[in-house]
């Protein structure tokens, strides 16, 4: 009887002691800097502006530098990108007549922007895309059919397109450059005696 009473009291003492230990940790947070912010209207800068360039938000297409190569459409695992790019029979030039992205289907994996040769299709830092109907979730980028962009040999000279192309290349520069492993190993062996 006495031993069980003693055990009970010891348990109670331990419980109180460890509760105070835990409470001291909690109390110490009164003097620490809070980690929470009041989203969305009381942040110093828009959250979108604080995100890294790599952030995978809602997709955007710069039609001015789209080459119509269909690499993004092929890379997409869920077929949320639809492109129509017929060839003009007379001039043999490629016309972009449709470029739709269904952002309700999109899973923001980034496989499309990885394969784009000019950085035309890229992720923005926008993430708030709520709307009232599924139809409005389809982003239609082509209003009137436009000519597909043709990469020039030297530097881009058109003052309208050059800054857009520079921005596209900035997005592309984030991705890792794939290398030929056999070649790379050979180079390494040659470099090391």
């Amino acid at each position: 009887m006495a031993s069980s009473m003693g055990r009970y009291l010891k348990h109670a003492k331990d419980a109180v002691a460890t509760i105070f230990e835990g409470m001291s940790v909690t109390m110490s947070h009164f003097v620490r800097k809070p980690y929470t912010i009041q989203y969305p209207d009381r942040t110093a800068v828009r959250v979108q502006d604080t995100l890294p360039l790599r952030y995978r938000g809602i997709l955007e297409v710069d039609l001015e530098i789209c080459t119509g190569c269909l690499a993004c459409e092929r890379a997409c695992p869920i077929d949320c990108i639809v492109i129509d790019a017929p060839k003009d029979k007379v001039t043999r030039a490629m016309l972009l007549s449709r470029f739709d992205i269904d952002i309700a289907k999109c899973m923001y994996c980034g496989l499309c922007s990885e394969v784009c040769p000019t950085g035309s299709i890229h992720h923005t830092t926008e993430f708030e895309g709520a709307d009232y109907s599924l139809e409005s979730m389809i982003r239609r980028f082509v209003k009137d059919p436009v000519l597909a962009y043709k990469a020039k040999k030297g530097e881009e000279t058109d003052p309208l397109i050059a800054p857009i192309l520079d921005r596209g290349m900035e997005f592309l520069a984030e991705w890792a450059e794939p290398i030929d492993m056999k070649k790379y190993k050979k180079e390494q062996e040659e470099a090391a005696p």
Partner: protein
Amino acid sequence: MSLAGYEFEVQRDDGLATEEMTLNMGPQHPSTHGVLRFVVKADGEIMRTALPDIGYLHRSIEKISEKVGYHGFMPYTDRVDYVSAMQCNQGWAMVCERAAGIEVPRRGEFCRIIACELGRIASHLLSVGTMVMDIGGMTPFTHAIREREKVNNLLEDLCGARLTFNYMRIGGVAWDLPPGYAEQVTAFLDQFEPLIAEYNDLISYNKIYVERLANVAAVSKEEAINYNLVGPNLRGCGFQYDVRRDEPYSIYPELDFDVPVGTGEVGTLGDCFDRYIVRIKELKESCKIVRQCLDMIPDGPVLARVAKKLKPPVGDAHVRVEASRGDMGWYVVSDGSEFPYRTKIRTGSFSAMSIVDKLSRGIMIADLIALIASLDVVAPEVDR
């Protein structure tokens, strides 16, 4: 009757009929960690059985792989276990590399391990945080989630997403470490490591919490092996087995880390508390691994060039990775075309579900919550 060391006397008046009570716990229950249902047969507060009913989150991910090809399947692997998606990414990348005989650049391997171990920290923090919350402590959950948020920010800087990373590619990783990343990660680890001790002060060794978990649903070593438990659940029983150490892959053989096991420090070996404390200890080990990787990481490329339409030779390949929920097996059969013939994923949560029926016999209904939380079951990983 006897229950976990306590003696009960069930008194019944003659002539009154009694029957077992059948309860449904879930599928929409916050403490089942996803859409998961338990059919509980109880005699008052004492459980006869708790049968898990799985399949609510089945998305036929294995079948999808047969339709989208080797490269296109990578974002789907994020959804196998969305709490620690990095290791799933690594499993798929590794099994394809083994099937097609692709070599990964050395820096790419380091990037993978850094990302994986940061993912493990985030996953274990969520696990220990929700475990305390399921049992009734609200404050520690916010502490754990706050630290997890910082890991998520780091991973966002690395790959642009917070949960479904899609970071790895067959042949390496898609993004190199951004400039100044090592300093950022080191700064995080420096402030995080003391917080593990603080977390222990706050809740782990709290007497009420310990009494709630000690001696509940203990698993012996033999049982754990028979029921195929893996990962922290297996190590909680005192069996030191870790794929990273015993069947090393990637650059793990070069790294120095311990494999923490349960010791039964507050009760029986292999009880809920042991499974919990193993995860806390693994947080420290993961920090150690990340620090070593940041010190050892060489310069160079991170991604090897792989054919756009990858066609591995006819045959099959199997790899095992140590995910946050234990040994994760990836198996792929190639018929020489650009789509896998068959993919099979073996996950730790699925085998953990099989032991719930056995362990739940004779414990209290409230202890079932502690049991499920300590097994760290993530429902999408059970069903895939």
